């Protein structure tokens, strides 16, 4: 007798698993769709001015309602999000500039430099910092970092401002772009370190040993063998960190200074970000009788999503570009290696 095939189970299970697998994609598409539809009225009112104008005004919520291009809005309403966009991009990009080199070195150290108990301890510590609630880091920023910038760092840095444009004053308070950048850097460094460390630990020992056998120093093995081996994973780590920096709300809200309607002109200028603004404006938006303020916030959220996707794509492009560059430079580099080999054998 033929054994009964277990087809039905397999079919049902694959249906279930398939559904589960597509769910994240479906959900993010649904989210994007809902945001896009909800943002339409605000985009109709503002057009491109939504991202090019510097005045964000919910209008007089206690005044009369007017109509702009057939859409009812509170009198005086104007949704120009440029300061939020600039604040988000500057703070997150500068944070990455600080975080990526630090995280790379920290990951190399914990993956290869430490052994046994020390390695485990470092890993636990880094994961601990990565998991710290942002409000805790924000509070540290407010109580420690902001006074430090105002009283100690700024007086030194502003002297360099004579030669470096973004470093000149006036330093009105410690809150602003620099504080936001450093707090974000602190938050994303462990995220990138942790991811990168896992990747580096997975580089096969044979490949590394081959590098040593070829006479490379341990730093050269890391630079020429290990880091290239995990290149695509590094992109993911950097994109993950950048995404977190862009979306971070609470800590930036606490140390960024919440500038209104004004673009930063120095490293010490107060800023506001897209994410922080959505959080801050929601309460007022709920009292807009025309509901337009909520549409404007949806438009902000949509912009935030577009920026996240954009930076993730950008980091991929950058690494692909550098990969091509490396490949092009590969052959002379190989020749560069040989003298080392002879010297090591000598």
């Amino acid at each position: 007798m033929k054994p009964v095939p277990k087809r039905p189970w397999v079919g049902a299970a694959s249906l279930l698993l398939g559904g589960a697998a597509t769910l994240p994609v479906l959900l993010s598409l649904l989210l994007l769709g809902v945001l896009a539809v909800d943002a339409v009225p605000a985009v109709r009112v503002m057009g491109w001015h939504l991202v090019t104008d510097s005045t964000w005004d919910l209008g007089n919520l206690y005044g009369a309602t007017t109509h702009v291009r057939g859409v009812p809005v509170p009198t005086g309403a104007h949704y120009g999000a440029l300061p939020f966009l600039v604040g988000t991009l500057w703070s997150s990009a500068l944070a990455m500039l600080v975080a990526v080199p630090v995280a790379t070195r920290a990951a190399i150290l914990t993956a290869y430099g430490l052994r046994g108990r020390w390695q485990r301890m470092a890993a636990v510590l880094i994961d601990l910092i990565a998991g710290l609630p942002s409000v805790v880091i924000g509070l540290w920023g407010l109580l420690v970092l902001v006074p430090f910038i105002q009283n100690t760092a700024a007086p030194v840095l502003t002297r360099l401002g004579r030669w470096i444009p973004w470093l000149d004053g006036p330093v009105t308070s410690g809150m602003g772009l620099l504080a936001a950048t450093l707090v974000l850097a602190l938050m994303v460094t462990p995220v990138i370190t942790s991811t990168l460390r896992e990747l580096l630990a997975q580089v096969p020992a044979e490949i590394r040993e081959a590098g040593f056998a070829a006479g490379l120093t341990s730093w050269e093995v890391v630079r020429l063998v290990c880091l290239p081996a995990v290149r695509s994973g590094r992109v993911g780590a950097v994109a993950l960190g950048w995404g977190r920096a862009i979306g971070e709300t609470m800590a930036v809200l606490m140390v960024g200074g919440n500038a209104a309607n004004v673009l930063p002109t120095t490293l010490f200028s107060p800023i506001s970000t897209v994410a922080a603004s959505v959080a801050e404006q929601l309460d007022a938006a709920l009292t807009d009788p025309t509901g337009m303020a909520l549409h404007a916030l949806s438009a902000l959220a949509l912009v935030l999503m577009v920026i996240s996707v954009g930076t993730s794509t950008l980091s991929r492009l950058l690494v692909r570009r550098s990969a091509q560059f490396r490949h092009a430079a590969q052959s002379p580099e190989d020749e560069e290696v040989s003298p080392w080999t002879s010297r090591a054998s000598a």
Partner: protein
Amino acid sequence: MTHTLRHGRMALVGAAMLAVGALAGCGSGSDTTGGNGNTAGNSTASIGAVTLAESGSSLLYPLFNNEWIPAYASVDKSVTLTAESSGSGTGIAKAIAGQVQIGASDAYLSDGQMQQHPTMLNIPLAVSAQQVMYNVPGLGKNVHLKLDGPTLAAIYEGKVQYWDDASITTLNPDVKLPHQRIIPVHRSDSSGDTFLFTQYLSDTDAAWKTSIAYGTSVSWPAVQGALGAKGNSGVVQTLAATPGSIGYVGISWLDQGVQQGLGYAALKNHNGQFELPTADAIQKEAAAGVNQVPDDERISLINLPADGGYPIVNFEYAIVNSQQPADVATALKKFLTWAIDPQQGGGSQYLTPVHFLPLPAAIQSKSQAQISKIGQ
């Protein structure tokens, strides 16, 4: 189960069952618990247990959560009160949506909102005020700067940039002010305090009224270096940490601000007098507004012609939907009546810790008239 699934065509059924599993589960679940739920509902209804949820203003939250809820537990055991500090705007939105029974707000509903939701009531519960606080290095502890609306407007517009500006020194000829940059601090979140402060500026400065106007969240003038802070706690913290700063703070935060070394201003009232936010001056201002309060009690008490009155005074509102189920309406009326009674919930033992004042008698009766509309 396995037996039935051996039949090939049952695969489809199996898949369908899995697909609608959640739905089927819900259906049967509600069937079985439905019976239990009914009996439970009946029994609780016979006891008369009702939950009144409050959400909104962070200024009212300490009064609700720390004072009224413990006190009311002994007044009416059948009612469970809950409180939530979510901000006035959220409180209003939740009350309109029926998610809470009481929305707490420092500001009344706008005309536009009242047209959309005509069954909403704005019931004053207590009188509150707001002071202007500053961190000016070298100023004596007992020195209160004299400030008026146009000067404050000019500071927030970035036109007056230093503490020794002529507009400030002419108001304070006896005070030696430093050549220190002024850093205006505003609320970054939506706030009844912003509503009150911008109303004072709008009432006293025509240019501010046309350019910025007033609201729980306004579009602040672009001033390089100006700061925003979240909540009254955030403003006090920012002021304390930033020399040269100035900001507006709700009266229940006055003590914390003074403890952190901040000064607070004597503000120019409608009659040209400079007044501090004392209980006496707040009472005088509220008393001046009594005759003007309409039946729906939506009114600004800012800058009224009151002799010796402090100019930034307001009602703290309960935003309530008059359309309620009978048992909720009864409990809500009883609680609100208790809350505005100066012999009971409106007594100084509850209000003084947060620097609030009880409603004047004429206002109490107007609030009572509104309370009686609930459930009708």
